[in-house]
């Protein structure tokens, strides 16, 4: 057992899979010799060589298109898109190509690839380098969408994504790269479509993803110590497939539901889950579900502005406390 960063977990996760399977290849901009703009691929080029870890031109369409062609014909590519905002310039592959080829061909073609990307805010990069794009991807039939919050989940879910026969969008949170967590030695393989109860509780369920998980945990700990309110925090981890069983189970236990989303409010994943809970567990609820999101605005750059846009532990605490007391 060692304590490593989320960033090092990315490197370890990719290395674990490349060492296991020669068909796993890796491509992206500045990923090989330079080790990645977030330094999340340092050492891979040295370990696996220029045939398996490849620098590409600034050609997001070519990166994802090539990953798809390679996947369709037998490789297991991991493609990096530097910032998730850039999905917009290669969205054809994400929306029209990867997820539809199996269906349109009536099951003839397959597309087992992983797109890794730096997602989310907190680095003062402004509106074109800070977005959380999980909702762009979640709505597309045929894709899987994963967003880990801890080093151990990074390794395990990345391994699961690489071994998955479907195209997987793997969203790494930029602000989590320097954070640390305990990781056991040896191979780690998790399962997609499983949520994790990261803090058990009785009074309310808080669903969170990626950077919002540690914030929700902090809020829950303070709600307990300062107000005697005992919240259960569920790390959703995977939006597609979605672990509704764990979510509904938690709501059945606590009878109250809060979602914490780092994305613009409109059409956020929280709305989808609230709708599922309303359909299938309405009578488990003791009060209306509440969504805590960013407002429906582009992300501002200034630290003072960015900080108030993202849900904070304080905002989560206040919202939960007021809702439970009303």
């Amino acid at each position, binding site marked *: 057992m060692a304590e490593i960063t989320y960033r090092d977990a990315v490197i370890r996760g990719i290395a674990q899979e490349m060492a296991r399977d020669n068909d796993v*290849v890796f491509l992206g901009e500045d990923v090989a010799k330079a080790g990645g703009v977030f330094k999340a691929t340092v050492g891979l080029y040295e370990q696996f060589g220029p*045939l*398996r870890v*490849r620098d*590409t*031109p600034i*050609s*997001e*369409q*070519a*990166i*994802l*298109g*090539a*990953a*798809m*062609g*390679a*996947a*369709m*014909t*037998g*490789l297991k*590519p991991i493609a990096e898109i530097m910032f998730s905002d850039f999905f917009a310039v290669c969205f*054809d*592959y994400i929306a*029209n*190509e990867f997820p539809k*080829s*199996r*269906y*349109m*061909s*009536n*099951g*003839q*073609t*397959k597309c*087992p690839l992983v797109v890794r990307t730096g997602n989310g805010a907190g680095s003062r990069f402004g509106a074109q380098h800070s977005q959380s794009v999980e909702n762009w991807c979640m709505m597309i*039939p*045929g894709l*899987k969408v994963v967003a880990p919050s801890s080093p151990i989940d990074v390794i395990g879910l990345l391994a699961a994504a690489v071994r*998955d*026969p*479907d195209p997987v969008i793997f969203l790494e949170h930029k602000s989590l790269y320097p954070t640390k967590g305990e990781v056991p030695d040896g191979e780690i393989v998790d399962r997609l*479509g499983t949520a994790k109860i990261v803090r058990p509780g009785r009074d309310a369920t808080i669903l969170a993803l990626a950077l919002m998980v540690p914030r929700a945990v902090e809020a829950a700990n303070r709600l307990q110590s300062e107000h005697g309110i005992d919240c259960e925090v569920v790390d959703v981890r995977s939006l*597609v*497939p*979605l*672990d*509704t*069983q764990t979510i509904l189970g938690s709501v059945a236990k606590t009878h109250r539901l809060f979602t914490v989303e780092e994305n613009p409010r409109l059409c956020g994943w929280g709305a989808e889950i609230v709708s*599922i809970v309303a359909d299938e567990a309405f009578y488990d609820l003791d009060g209306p579900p509440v969504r805590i999101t960013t407002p429906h605005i582009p992300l501002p750059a200034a630290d003072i502005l960015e900080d108030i846009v993202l849900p904070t532990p304080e905002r989560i605490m206040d919202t939960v406390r007021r809702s439970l007391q009303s």
Partner: protein
Amino acid sequence: MATAQDRASVPPGAGLNDDIGEDKRLAIYRSQLRIREAEQRAYDLFLQNLVKGTSHLSLGQEAVATGFAEAMQKGDLSFCTYRGHAHTLARGVSVEKVLGELMQRDNGLMRGKGGSMHLTSEEHGVMGSYAIIGAHLPIACGAAWRAQYKGDKDVSVCFFGDGTTNIGAFHEALNFAAVWKLPVVFVCENNLYMEYTPIGDVTAVPHPAADRAASYGLERIIIDGNDADVVYRTAQKAYANARAGEGPSLIEALTYRHSGHSRADPAKYRPEGELEKWKERDPIKIYRERLKQFGVGDKVIADIDASVRKEVDDATEACKAAPMPPLDILTTDVYADGGWAWRN
């Protein structure tokens, strides 16, 4: 195959004995005719409301699909567009499977789940037809990258139109393929029009593909896309280079579509006489004359014509008799587990 009797009137020395050879020439003729007849049939069936949706015919462009396909080896991969019936048939997919898909029947290539614009037959190396302009050029690069990485000897061949050369993905793919020296052959079928607009009106260079080849360090190659022999020889050379590790080629084949862009298009934008002029250079007419020059008898040609017509007639009847797809395939194959569930 020509018999001695058929050749009775042939002057000495005029046999099918050049580099292409008799068997291949007859195969090239048959394939072009098969595409022509199948597509004309698709149009007839549309008029009878038996083919629905849209479809994009390659009438007049048969030599390109045929020449490139006949030079391919088993295991080579082709990537085509919504105008991909020809490329799919050229690789040996049956007329029944193609017409069945166009008629949205259960006997279609994808049982009606793909439609006219999305023909795929992995067993024939037909790796899909892509309806978003330019999307498949990078995908073909990826398939070629796999061949390079694994030491496989197959070539990926990617067909697209002149209009596609103004899309970003074209330029990304060409640069990518060139820097990685991938075994991929890009084939631009310059039929002079994108949808309804002449390509010259919207392109900064006269030859939309070939004039840009130098930007990627590639040879400028322009060929007569209506002469299947020229196409076949060009393809052989490009594939050989790709297999030898010499990297990609970009080939601009000059051709012309006899019909409108899609079935909704009467092609009124064409200048008077243009179609007639190109019909004199109809690839099938050219090829039939070529066979005769080489001494193939009328009977051999007539036999091929009759057998192709019968194949298309039989396929049509089989498709008319085939059931519509069952509703239970609606939700299959969204995910690899065969289903469509996105939650547990």
